[in-house]
């Protein structure tokens, strides 16, 4: 990456062009035959862009852009965290992405286990975990979280003959099936989806075609610069207003219809999709990615007997019962609806996973100041 090329970035951060897109969005939302219009994105990076650039204050009042289950750390289910914590307490060395450390399990997070003496390493990539295994004789378990984008990286390592003392505890998730769940939720008012550009770079836009057919809901693939997000929403409103749901690609500089075929082959050679719970959401058929039999020797679940029962004799504290992460991830509540947000629950003292991960809605809202109405502020002396 060239850190010194400001032009590459400015092209997609031009406030003038943003103004044009904003006017188009105003017009399209106004033209809709009802109000408000609700759309959903399923990606923490989209929420980051929206919050960081203050886009919500620029969206039309009658457009609701809701963040869905787009944070892989947040949807990692409690029993999955428990498995990692139990292994760590059994004395097995665990490597994981930093965000996973503080995600609460039934009674402990990996960070809690580490504070009690367990051996837990933060890594920035799966290859770092493999290096760790090469440097040491002991067993290294990589607690793998992330959607298909990250799962491909895990797959690439597993087909490349990692050392025998390396194994993967997969909590990888697959996004397309959860969109079906959200579309079928009775409370949902979602009229269209903004799909994540980086995931679609791998899966291709075609992966959403059947979904559109089944649910009659449009999907527009969008990138992560502010202009990408604005352009994606303009395109999505156009399709919603047309009454002819279809898949549109608003991120053509990276995404093709067929996607990265090599990466897809790699993904499905190593992983199979299986049903499982997503934290706070539901049981998602085909929503979990687990290792295929051919890779059994690298599968932590088959290599170790994991006994998490010791973690279960525990009643969750009252605060946890008030946590609204599940509803927030399903898009039926916002952090502003949560009694704990910004009070008992902060990045420093997180109650739910959404306040832990850099991709969690609550963490993002907290970091960027939430969503106050800033439209009416007058400049100049009083």
């Amino acid at each position, binding site marked *: *990456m060239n*850190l*010194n*090329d*400001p032009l590459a*970035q400015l092209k997609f*951060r031009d*406030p003038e062009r*943003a103004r044009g897109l904003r006017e188009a969005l105003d017009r399209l939302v106004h033209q809709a035959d009802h109000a408000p219009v609700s759309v959903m994105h399923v990606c923490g990076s989209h929420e980051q862009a929206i*919050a*960081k*650039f*203050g*886009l*919500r*204050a*620029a*969206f039309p009042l009658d457009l609701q852009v809701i963040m869905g289950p787009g944070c892989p750390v947040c949807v990692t289910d409690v029993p999955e965290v428990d498995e990692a914590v139990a292994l760590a307490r059994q004395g097995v060395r665990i490597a994981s992405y930093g965000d996973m450390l503080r995600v609460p399990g039934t009674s402990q997070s990996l960070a809690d286990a580490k504070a009690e003496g367990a051996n837990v390493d933060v890594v*920035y990539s799966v290859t770092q975990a493999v290096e760790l295994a090469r440097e040491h004789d002991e067993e290294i378990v990589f607690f793998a979280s992330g959607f298909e984008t990250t799962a491909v990286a895990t797959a690439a390592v597993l087909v490349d003959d990692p050392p025998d003392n390396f194994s993967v505890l997969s909590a990888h998730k697959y996004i397309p099936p959860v969109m079906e769940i959200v579309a079928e939720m009775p409370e949902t008012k979602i009229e269209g989806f903004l799909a994540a550009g980086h995931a679609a770079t791998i899966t291709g836009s075609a992966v959403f075609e059947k979904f559109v057919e089944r649910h009659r809901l449009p999907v527009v693939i969008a990138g992560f610069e*502010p202009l990408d997000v*604005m352009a994606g929403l303009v395109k999505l409103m156009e399709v919603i207003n047309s009454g002819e749901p279809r898949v549109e690609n608003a991120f053509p500089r990276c995404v093709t219809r067929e996607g990265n075929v090599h990466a897809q082959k790699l993904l499905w050679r190593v992983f199979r999709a299986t049903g499982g719970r997503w934290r706070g959401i539901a049981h998602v058929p085909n929503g979990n990615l687990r290792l295929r039999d051919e890779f059994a020797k690298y599968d932590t679940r088959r290599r170790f007997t994991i006994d998490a029962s010791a973690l279960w004799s525990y009643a969750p504290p009252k605060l946890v019962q008030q946590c609204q992460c599940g509803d927030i991830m399903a898009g039926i509540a916002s952090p502003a609806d949560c009694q704990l947000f910004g*009070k008992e629950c*902060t*990045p*420093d003292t997180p109650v739910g996973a959404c306040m832990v991960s*850099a991709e969690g809605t609550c963490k993002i809202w*907290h*970091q*960027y*100041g*939430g969503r*106050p109405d*800033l439209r*009416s*502020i*007058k*400049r*100049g*002396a*009083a």
Partner: protein
Amino acid sequence: MTRNARFVDERITLKYGTGGGAMRALIEQVFAKGLGDVEDGIGLGAMDDGAAIRIGDQYLVIATDSHVVQPIEFPGGDIGRLAISGTVNDLAMMGATEPLALTCAAIIEDGFPRDDLVRIWASIRATCEEAGTTIVTGDTKVMGHGELDGLVLNTTGVALTSRLVSDSGLRPGDRILVTGTMGDHGLAIMATRNELALETTLESDVAPIHTLVRRALDVGGEGVVALKDPTRGGLSSALHEMAEKSSVGIIVDETAVPLRDEVRAVGELLGIDPLVSANEGKAVFGLRPEVAAGVLDAIRSHPLGRNAAIVGECVADRPGFVILDTGFGSRLLAEAEGELLPRIC
């Protein structure tokens, strides 16, 4: 300051040292209780950059600062240069731009290399010379291995001034000026973390800037109504403090804030906003609108102020809040909270 009332933890954790709301709450609730009143001047309760005591027709300004940074030598400076610059700048932020003298206390960990100490003191001497001051007394302590991390320096400075500048004189319509690029020190330190394996040319901006401040005060006179150095917590913490103390809202034009391209890029890579990252050679000015252009020109004519810019203005709405106009929309600028990162100053 009811927003800070929630900081009542039974144990003092790292978040109380990040220069944000938690630290201000601790000072209010513990340190300033029954202490620090100054009859004619500025005392502890004001939580300004230093104190001021009236002596005849002048004020004696006192500022103190402890310095802990990892690594102790970093691109663009070291803990010694940081300790001298930090205290000289704190004095200047009160309007006292001619440091009479400094003290320096060193707490050293058992086993600390003598060569390192000699290098750091060479840097201290050079920075004192640059700032036109010297160290007139000090103190030395050595603590056991593991009882502290390498070296802690505390410096105190004294200076006289006939006019004090507080950090709380803002009213709606006033302009906000920064004297240069934001976030350089904080991100230069972050980028040295080994595990990130970043190769950058980022450098800390650590420098004494009292002569720059003097130039601005000479031109702006009574029109300079607030002054603060955006150290820990960066521009965001400095503006929050100014907005809270003056009961104004502050709107910042993000596109006007000077940022080095590399700082912007590394910040995005690490997920750290340069506006909450520390600076060690910069100041934030609050200016009456009529003096803003003149002060800007004066600061830009100083070698350390070439990138200075007017970045925002004060409003009557939303007192105590800082609003960021991103050019695409707007949002509240949040303060840094929690400390997951190595110590930086």
